[in-house]
C-alpha cells in the first residue's frame, strides 16, 4: 500500500470510503482482483470503530438464518486470510463459553445452541462440574453454559495494517473528508474540500458515519451509532481461558431500547490485560465515557468472575458500533445510486464479518460468485 497524505486525483475503478477493517478488507479484495482501488478516510487507518473493539470473530452469538450463514462463511475466510497474513495479526482459536445465571436463561441458551448446531456451528452444553473445569473462576452460582470451540480472535489494528500492507498496488489517501459525491455517467466523482477522484464504483464502508457518506451522495441510509465501552485491567495471569460472556448478550444486540444495555463479556489477551465489556447505548455521537457505565461493567464482571475483584482497572476506551434498523448488515447497491455500494451496519460484528462483506461487495461490482444469497443484506429491503 502506498501511503499518501496528498489529495485524491485522477481516476480509479473503485473508491472505498472508510479505512477500518471492513473498508480495508473490501479495498484489499478488489485490489487483488485486479481493480484500480483508492482507499480514502477523513483520518488515518483505523481511526473509527475498528480501534474500539476487541477483535472478535464469533459465530456463537449469531442467530440462525442469514446472519449466521454470513458469519460462518466469513470465519472460514478468516482462517484462510490468517495463513496468508502471518503472526502479527495474533489469530487465536480461543473458543467462547456462554454462561447462564438462571435456569430459564440456561434453557433458552441450550435451545439456541441446538438451532445453531443444525446450521453447522459446533457447540457443547456444559453443566455442573464440567462448567467449572472449563472456567474454574466462574461464580459458584452459574447454572450452566455452552462451549463454542470455533470462536476466534485477532488484533484488529494490526490485522487492518497487515491487510493493507499485503496489497502494494492499493492507494491510501488519508486526512481527506469526503464532502460530496456526484453522479458522473455510470459512475461518480468523489470530492473533498480540495480534490476529487472519478470512480466507476464507490464503496461506503464508513461504519457509524455511513449515513453521512450516503447523504453526501444524495442518498439515505438509516445507520445509527450505538456507543460501547471496554474496560481494561492490569496484566494478569490467566483468570479466564476463553472468551466468557453472559447468555443475555444476544438479546442486547437485538434490543431497540435506547437506555444503556449491558451484557458481561470477559476476555483475556495475549499481552495480559483482561478486557471487560459490554455496553450498548444510543447517545448519538457523544464520545464521552461515563463513570457510571465503567462502574457497572466492573460490578458485573466481579459478579461473574469474583476472583477478579482485586484486579485493578487501568483504562477504558469507547467507540460507536454501526447499528442497522433490522440488526442485519447493509451490503449492496444503493436503490437510488447503483454505483454506490454500501458495506456497513455490522453493529458489533464488523471484524468477524469483514471478509464476507468484501466478497459480497466484490460480487456486486465484478459479479464474482458467492456461496450465500446477497438478498437479506440488500439495502433495498428498507424500501
Amino acid at each position, binding site marked *: *500500500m502506498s*501511503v499518501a*497524505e496528498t489529495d485524491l486525483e485522477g481516476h480509479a475503478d473503485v473508491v472505498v470510503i472508510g*479505512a477500518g477493517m471492513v473498508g480495508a478488507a473490501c479495498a484489499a479484495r478488489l485490489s487483488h482482483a485486479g481493480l484500480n482501488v483508492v482507499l480514502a478516510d477523513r*483520518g*488515518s*487507518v*483505523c*481511526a473509527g470503530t475498528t*480501534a474500539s473493539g476487541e477483535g472478535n470473530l464469533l459465530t456463537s452469538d449469531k442467530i440462525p438464518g442469514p446472519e449466521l450463514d454470513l458469519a460462518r462463511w466469513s470465519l472460514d475466510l478468516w482462517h484462510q486470510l490468517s495463513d496468508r497474513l502471518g503472526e502479527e495479526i495474533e489469530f487465536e482459536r480461543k473458543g467462547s463459553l456462554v454462561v447462564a445465571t438462571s435456569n430459564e436463561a440456561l434453557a433458552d441458551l441450550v435451545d439456541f445452541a441446538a438451532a445453531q448446531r443444525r446450521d453447522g456451528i459446533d457447540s457443547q452444553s456444559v453443566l455442573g462440574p464440567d462448567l467449572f473445569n472449563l472456567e474454574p*473462576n466462574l461464580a459458584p452460582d452459574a447454572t450452566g453454559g455452552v462451549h463454542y470451540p470455533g470462536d476466534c480472535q485477532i488484533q484488529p*489494528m*494490526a490485522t487492518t*495494517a497487515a491487510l*493493507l*500492507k499485503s496489497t502494494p498496488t492499493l492507494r*491510501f489517501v*488519508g*486526512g481527506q473528508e469526503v464532502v460530496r459525491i456526484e453522479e458522473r455517467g455510470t459512475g461518480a466523482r468523489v470530492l473533498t474540500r480540495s480534490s476529487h477522484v472519478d470512480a466507476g464504483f464507490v464503496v461506503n464502508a464508513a461504519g457509524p458515519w455511513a449515513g453521512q457518506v450516503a447523504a453526501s451522495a444524495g442518498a439515505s441510509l438509516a445507520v445509527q451509532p450505538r456507543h460501547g465501552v471496554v474496560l*481494561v*485491567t*492490569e*496484566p*494478569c*495471569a490467566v*483468570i479466564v481461558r476463553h472468551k466468557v460472556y453472559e447468555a*443475555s448478550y444476544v438479546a*442486547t444486540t437485538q*434490543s431497540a*431500547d435506547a*437506555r444503556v*444495555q*449491558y*451484557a458481561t463479556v470477559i476476555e483475556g489477551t495475549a*499481552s*495480559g*490485560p483482561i478486557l*471487560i465489556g459490554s455496553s450498548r447505548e444510543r447517545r448519538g455521537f457523544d464520545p464521552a*465515557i461515563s*463513570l457510571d457505565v*465503567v*462502574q*457497572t461493567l*466492573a*460490578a*458485573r*464482571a*466481579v*459478579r461473574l468472575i*469474583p*476472583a*477478579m*475483584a*482485586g*484486579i*485493578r*482497572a*487501568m*483504562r*477504558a476506551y469507547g467507540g460507536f458500533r454501526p447499528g442497522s434498523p433490522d440488526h442485519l448488515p447493509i451490503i449492496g447497491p444503493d436503490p437510488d445510486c447503483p454505483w454506490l455500494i454500501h458495506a456497513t451496519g455490522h453493529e458489533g460484528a464488523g471484524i468477524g464479518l469483514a471478509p464476507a462483506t468484501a466478497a459480497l461487495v466484490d460480487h456486486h461490482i465484478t459479479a464474482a460468485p458467492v456461496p450465500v444469497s446477497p438478498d437479506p443484506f440488500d439495502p433495498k429491503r428498507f424500501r
Partner: protein
Amino acid sequence: MTEGSFSFNGERVAFQQGQSVAGALIAAGVSPVRYTRSGAARHVFCGIGNCWDCLASSDPGDVPVRTCLTPAVADTTWAPSISTATAGSDQPRLAAKTDLRSTAMVVGAGPAGIAAASHLVRRGIDITVIDAGEQPGGQLLRPSRLKEADGGIDGRAGIDIGDGEHLRYLSSSAVWHLRRQDDGWRAEVTAAAGQTAVISRYVVLATGAHEYVRPFPGWHLPGVMAAGGAQRFAKGDNAFWGRQILVAGNGPLLLTVAATLARLGADVTLALDARFKSAIRAVSSAGLRRILEAAGYGSALLRGGTRIMLGATLLRCDGDDRVRTALVRHRGKDHTISVDSLAVSHGLVPDTTLAVSAGALCQPAGSGGRALAADHRQRSSVEGLLAAGETTGIGGGQLGRLEGANAALTIAEAEGHPSTAAEVKRIQKAITRERRSVASLLRALPDGDWLDDIDPDTIVCRCEEVSARSVPKAVESGAWNLRSIKALTRAGMGYCQGRTCGPILRQYATRLVSRDVGWLDNRLIGTPVSLAELSAEHHDLTNG
C-alpha cells in the same frame, strides 16, 4: 539506624526508619525489583510513583505495588513482580465508601498545595487536602536526612498546613476520578486505609509535575534513574547505588542532585549538555538569587572533587543485569565512564491527568507535555476548578507557593471573604516577577533535537518495551495520531498510562507526521483501582 529487615526474593534486606521499600533496596544494592514481560530486569526509575517500574508484590497473589511509595515494614516478604497480577481467592473486604464534604478541596500537598491550603484555612474556609504522599511537601519539600542544613531552595523544614478545625488532610491518597456534580465537584479517592468521595464547591489542582527524560540506549537498565528520583532517595533515604554516579542532562535540578550525592560520599561525574552555555547565560539574566544558588551548588561540587563536564552529551549506557558504563561525548571525544548509577533529567512536564479528565482547557507546555490553562486568578476554563504550581506550567517551588496563595484568595473572594486590593496586587506582582525570572531559565532547556539521531533499538515506551523503530513503522501503516500509534504499538498502554512515554511520543510523532497528533494524557481512571473499588456503589446488574 536499622529499624528492621524484610525479605526480598529470599534475601534479607535491612532498612532504616522511614525508608521506602525501594530506598532500602537501593541502599542494599539489591536488584532487580521486577522482570518485564520479555524477562528484562528493571529497577526504580522515577522514584516518585509515576513510572511504575519499581513494582513488586508483598505476598504471592497480591497485586504488585510501587515500592517507591511503600514504607518498609519489618518481617514482610516481597517478590519481584513478573508483570502479572494474579486473581485473589480472598475478596478484598471493602468498607463502605464515605462521603466527605468541604467548601474546597486541594489536590496535592507540595509547595503550591500547601500554600493554597494554609491561605484558605487562615480565611476560615473549610478544606480537604488530598495528597499522594505520606506527609506534606510533595517533591520539592521532602524532609532531609542529611546532617548538614541544606542551603538550597528545597531545604525548608517545618511545613505547617494549619490545624484541624477547618482542615482535613488525607495522606497517601490518590484521586482517581474528578467530575462535576450538582454545583460542585466530586473526587473519587483511593487509599490503603479505604475509599472516599470528596465533594466540594471548589477544587485547587496542585498535582505537580513529573520528570522528563529523553530515551537513550540502555536507559531501562537497573541503576538508571531520573534525577528527581535519585535526589529523593539520596536526600530522603540516604540511599544511592554503589559509588560512581553520572549525573547527566540539563536543568538546575542536576546541580542539586550532584551536590547531594557528593555530600553523601558518592563519586560524582556531572555532565551538563550542550545547552549548558545558554543555561549559564539564562541564569545570569535571571537575577542575583539564581546566580547565588548556582554558585552555592557549584562550590559544594568542587569541594567534593566532582568531575564536571560542560557541553557534554550522554549518548548511551550499557550493562548486563544493571548499568555498568556510560558513553559521553565531550569536546569531540567519546568518553566511556564506569558507573554504578545514572541520574538523568531533561526537564519536567506537568501532570495533567485530572485537568484533562475534568475537561479543563490545556495548552502545550514544552518537552511534549501540556499544562492546564489558568488565568491571572488561577481559574481554569471550568467553573470552580482552579490550579496552582507546576500543573499550570513548570515554574518551580516559589512560583507554586505564590500561585497557591493566589488561588486561595480567589476562592476566598468567591466565598465572601475578599482580600484587599493591595494584597491582590502584591501577589500578582510577585507572580509576574517570578514568572519572568523562571522563563529565562526554562528557555534554555532543550526540546526535540534528540530525535535527529535516534537509535531504532532505543525503548520509547518503558512499560510495554516498545522500541523507537515501531513508531515510524506505525506511521507508515497509516497511524497519524497518538491514539492510532498507541493502538498499533501498545505504547502508552502500560501501568504508567503514558506518563513517561507520552511527551516522548508526542515529540516523535509530531516530527514524523507534522500535524497535531493529539495527546496520551486522557485518563478516565487516573490511577489504577481494583474492580471492587471501582464498582463499590454499583449494585445495578439488570438492564433497563
